[in-house]
């Protein structure tokens, strides 16, 4: 009843091809943005911002990055964690070499380094496909992790082998280091994530995005129609790694404050991959939903028993959380293998005919 596009006529091609042709979608997006930019900063406490929202947005951005590569271009990658690490280490090196430069610009620049490295490791994709490609990206993961541990120049010879984010100011406020307030960090992360998501939404439905999808659906046919597979695949690797790199840099600059090489291990790659698979391959909104499920749900389950007064031992809560999240993952994948994005599609369809389904 409420979600029905009946009566919304388009009188120009421009209106018909808009990013969101349906009025309700536009309103929905505005409501979400209003909640993210106004309601949450006003109402939320520090814990909600630092432990839930900031990591959620960082992971959502990383999931978008992997989704570009795996969901839209069909190249399976297990190197996400390492590409995020490249962004983090690049941003750290940049900000220590140029201490007076704006750290937000440095974070955005760091993605360039990770894009370059991503493109190099994407070279085998021309010859190797599917699971075999996953193995070569796995090599990227191990090689880069080895670099983070073994090249002291990358972490400025820190005795602990960790990168520690220094105090930096931008536009007159402290944006990184321990004194940066959660609200400031949240706004930076939210703005960057929203900006990149918006850019990607447009890229993906344009010529570039379509050429990626052609490669994904059938690379031989795409080649016959004039898509150059090498350039297209490498561009997917570069764009994906750029986004992952920015997410990785944000992860350490605006969330963790310090990172060891183990923060960017294979476990992170899998975490992001599961977000993409659960959220829905080839869907931007799915990236957000997958990130919410994998990150927010366990935190939620972990702290809920205490807040409603049930006294459970810390390790019991941990075990129960593992079991519930695991069971839910299996449940959702059996019921809807195409992820939350597909579930949301079904929900929209039902809303369209509600309350008189036929």
């Amino acid at each position, binding site marked *: 009843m409420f979600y029905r596009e009946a009566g919304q006529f388009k009188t120009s091609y421009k209106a018909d091809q808009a990013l969101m042709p349906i009025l309700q979608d536009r309103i929905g997006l505005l409501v979400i943005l209003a909640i993210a930019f106004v309601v949450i900063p006003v109402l939320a406490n520090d814990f909600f911002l630092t432990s839930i929202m900031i990591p959620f947005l960082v992971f959502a951005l990383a999931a978008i990055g992997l989704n570009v590569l795996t969901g839209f271009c069909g190249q399976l990658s297990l190197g996400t964690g390492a590409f995020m690490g490249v962004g983090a280490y690049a941003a750290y090196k940049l900000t220590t070499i140029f201490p007076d430069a704006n750290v937000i610009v440095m974070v955005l620049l760091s993605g360039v380094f990770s894009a370059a490295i991503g493109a190099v490791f994407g070279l085998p994709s021309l010859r190797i496909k599917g699971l075999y490609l996953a193995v070569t990206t796995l090599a990227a993961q191990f090689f880069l992790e080895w670099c983070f541990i073994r090249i002291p120049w990358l972490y400025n010879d820190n005795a602990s082998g960790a990168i520690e984010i220094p105090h930096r100011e931008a536009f007159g406020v402290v944006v990184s*280091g321990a004194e940066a307030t959660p609200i400031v960090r949240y706004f930076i992360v939210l703005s960057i994530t929203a900006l990149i998501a918006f850019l990607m939404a447009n890229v993906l439905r344009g010529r570039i995005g379509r050429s990626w999808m052609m490669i994904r659906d059938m690379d031989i046919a795409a080649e016959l129609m004039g898509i150059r597979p090498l350039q297209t695949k490498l561009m997917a690797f570069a764009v994906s790694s750029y986004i992952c790199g920015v997410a990785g840099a944000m992860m350490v600059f605006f969330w963790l404050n310090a990172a060891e090489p183990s923060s960017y291990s294979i476990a992170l790659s899998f975490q992001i991959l599961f977000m993409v698979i659960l959220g829905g391959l080839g869907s931007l909104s799915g990236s957000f939903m997958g990130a919410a499920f994998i990150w927010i749900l366990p935190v939620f389950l972990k702290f809920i028993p205490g807040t409603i007064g049930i006294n459970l031992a810390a390790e019991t809560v941990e075990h129960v959380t593992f079991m519930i999240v695991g069971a839910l993952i299996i449940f959702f994948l059996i019921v809807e293998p195409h992820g939350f994005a597909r579930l949301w599609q079904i929900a929209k369809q039902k809303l369209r005919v509600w309350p008189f389904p036929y």
Partner: protein
Amino acid sequence: MKRIKQIALGTAVALGVGISGLATTTVAQAEDSNYVPLLTYRTGPFAASGIHIANGMHDYLKMLNERDGGIGGVKLELEECETGYNAQKGVECYEATKGKGALVYNPYSTGITLQLIPKAGVDKIPVLSMGYGLSAAAVGSTFPWVFNVPDTYWDGASVVIKYIGEQEGGLDNLKGKKIGYIFLDAGYGREPIPLLEQLAEKYGFELLQYPVGVKEMQNQSSQWLNVRRDRPDYMVMWGWGAMNPTAIKEAVKIRFPMDKFIGVWWSAGDDDAAAGGEGAKGYKAMNFSGVGSDFPALDDIKKHVIDAGLSSTDAGSIGGTLYNRGVLNSVIIAEGIRTAQELTGKKVITGADMRMGLEALDLDEARLKELGLAGFAHPMKVTCDDHAGSHPVFIQEWDGKQWRQASGWIEPMTDIVRPLLEAAAAEYAQKNAPWPERTEPCPN
């Protein structure tokens, strides 16, 4: 199938609504208690070590609640938060608990400690990393909010070399010897390397490094193959969790002489050594907390906490090295709270008061006896300048069934360690510029 999809949709909606409700959860803090969060790990790859520490910390503080009604007449409110030795989860626990009036944090992970060090001064909550964490944090004038009594890793590393020197009949005899260093390849295991390298240069021995990645903790055959090839005269280990028993088993397998294999105080667990079976006899480790369960305070724990069913501790693990280490940690927390109460005259204290209490900590022989822990640890004292104190440690030896003290108290090489600590602290402050100048007044 349609029905199932409806259920799935319903579940998704319910989860979404539930999660959005989390934004508004806050917990009121009780007015008449002191809140001590315990960041522990009873799950994950380091649980084997973490459980004993967690039990020890929890049981001693719980015992104070049951026996004395808390400290200074005010109960302690304890809350455990599971970190799994994972830095991200550790920070999550920190953020979730700091708003409830937390007095002090014991991260039990060098990775988490590094994350909390810059936050401590901003949130005004001290970090007590007892015998771990950032060595440079011992310099109180740079790190007023971080405490690492009784020793830093650099103190520990100097004691090992000193002990090896004693075995060889003098430090000068170390010339030309090969000392192998097997360590967990994380912030923790890398911490002592700068000092060991310094000592290697000074005394002319060769330092061979064998890093063990967290992922290959339980598969160290390649490292020990190298050890067999290199034939070091001594092996020193900085291990934790599943790495310890694996290393000891591998050492037994390649027939490395166990009396020349020395672990740090975190590689001193009973389960760690027992894993090597008969062959582990002679394995040595440093320690600074009591061996055995023959202390009145531990009897009180048994009586008031374990027998009363208030703990998940297995009675047999009381008196183990790591359990006792957890108890010692809680003793320092409790004494810090007591000192803070005396200094401020308040019953319910804040994190800033706790910082003063820890800085004025003076755990002497008489006080240890009063606590029912005579001989449990070396008397320790914190000063504003020195937050570690470089207290002596002893070497213990595994006799196949239990740990036995194998040496007297050995003083660290303070003359070498202290200047290095100061240089490292200055470097840290410079790298993290602008690092705040110390403004906190000195309580003693």
